[in-house]
């Protein structure tokens, strides 16, 4: 490899870096070539001793990505770091896949906790609002006789079935089983479904919520929660959501810190700046 090829490869591989930094690096190596040639060495010899320009550039890129991420911890910068480390062959698949799965679960956990927290806030807010202003009216949950505040009263009458279908597979079905007298209301779309079954005696016998991440299935409740229960459920959800989010946040911070340290360590290893007694 001669000087021109070396410099061209280096320049091409440095493409992602800011122009000023790229210019400085290229100037450094041009200067080195100039000095070495003046010293009577051949271009090929100097290029070989400087190492593979592609690898050199990847290390410089990884360093820049790590710095960007350390100054601003965004998800985009995080994936920049992961990508750069993967490009260096530091993160192999054996390591990267469990890590990705872990990140994925962490994300889901945080989202679910957020939803729980939100539901808790809404329920507690309802209770507070009810205590202060008598609005909205909280009545036994999901009990047909008094369910005005919670469940829309659907006058099914004697209709055997209503079936509404949308163009993208959305469907609303109201179906009454003539033998048992059970009424089933089912709404489903691409992302999930809600299913509510009302027993012939007017109680809700089954409530099922599902989406592509999971399902909630409640059965056999009988004159359950009242005003106090709304508060306790609300506070319970607040607590669960709060704890979940706190743990999630701590894990995220820990992960980021560990990843940053791992990245720095790997880069240091690659550049041969670690090891030996010089530094602790």
């Amino acid at each position, binding site marked *: 490899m001669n000087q021109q090829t070396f410099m061209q490869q280096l320049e091409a591989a440095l493409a992602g870096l800011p122009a000023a930094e790229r210019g400085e*690096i290229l*100037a*450094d*190596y*041009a*200067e*080195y070539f*100039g*000095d*070495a040639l*003046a*010293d009577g060495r051949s271009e090929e010899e*100097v290029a070989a*001793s*400087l*190492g593979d320009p592609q690898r*050199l550039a990847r*290390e*410089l890129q990884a360093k820049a990505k790590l710095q960007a991420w350390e100054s601003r911890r965004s998800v985009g910068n995080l994936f920049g770091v992961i990508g750069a480390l993967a490009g260096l062959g530091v993160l192999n698949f054996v390591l990267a896949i469990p890590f990705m799965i872990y990140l994925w679960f962490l994300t889901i956990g945080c989202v679910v906790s957020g939803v729980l927290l939100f539901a808790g806030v809404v329920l507690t807010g309802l209770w507070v609002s009810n205590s202060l202003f008598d609005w909205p009216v909280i009545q036994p949950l999901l009990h047909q006789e008094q369910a005005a505040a919670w469940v829309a009263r659907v006058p099914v009458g004697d209709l055997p079935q209503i079936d509404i279908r949308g163009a993208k597979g959305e469907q609303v079905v109201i179906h009454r089983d003539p033998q048992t007298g059970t009424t089933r209301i089912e709404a489903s779309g691409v992302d999930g479904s809600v299913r509510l079954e009302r027993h012939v005696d007017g109680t809700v016998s089954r409530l099922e919520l599902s989406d592509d991440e999971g399902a909630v299935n409640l059965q056999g409740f009988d004159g359950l929660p009242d005003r106090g229960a709304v508060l306790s459920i609300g506070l319970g959800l607040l607590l669960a959501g709060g704890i979940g989010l706190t743990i999630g946040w701590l894990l995220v911070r820990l992960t980021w810190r560990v990843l940053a340290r791992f990245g720095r360590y790997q880069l240091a290893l690659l*550049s*041969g*700046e*670690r*090891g*030996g*007694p*010089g*530094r602790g």
Partner: protein
Amino acid sequence: MKTQLKKGTLEMCVLALLARADSYAYELVSRLADCMEISEGTVYPLMRRLQAEGWVTTYLVESASGPSRKYYALTATGRQSLAEMQVEWREFVAEVNSVLAPQAASEAAQAKRNNPQGEVE
């Protein structure tokens, strides 16, 4: 073992060269290569790191032939770090020597133990 050791101490050697006089990359490499085996590719990453630590600064000097040269100069903090490294290095070398030459070390330790007695007598 040898390469690991060298990598860790290369930084100190570069700082030590710069403590004597400002220099540029090729000159640094040539000086180092006179006394030890080094790979030239490690020099620029190393210099960038020393810069990031604030131990060295750079300035450009126009040259009559070819591109201008980047000179590296030791900063005050760099000088201080070098002094600390040298102390650490000497301590480390002494420790290793005392392990490698246990006889000499134990004799030295004995001499130390005997010395106070000598004073009493």
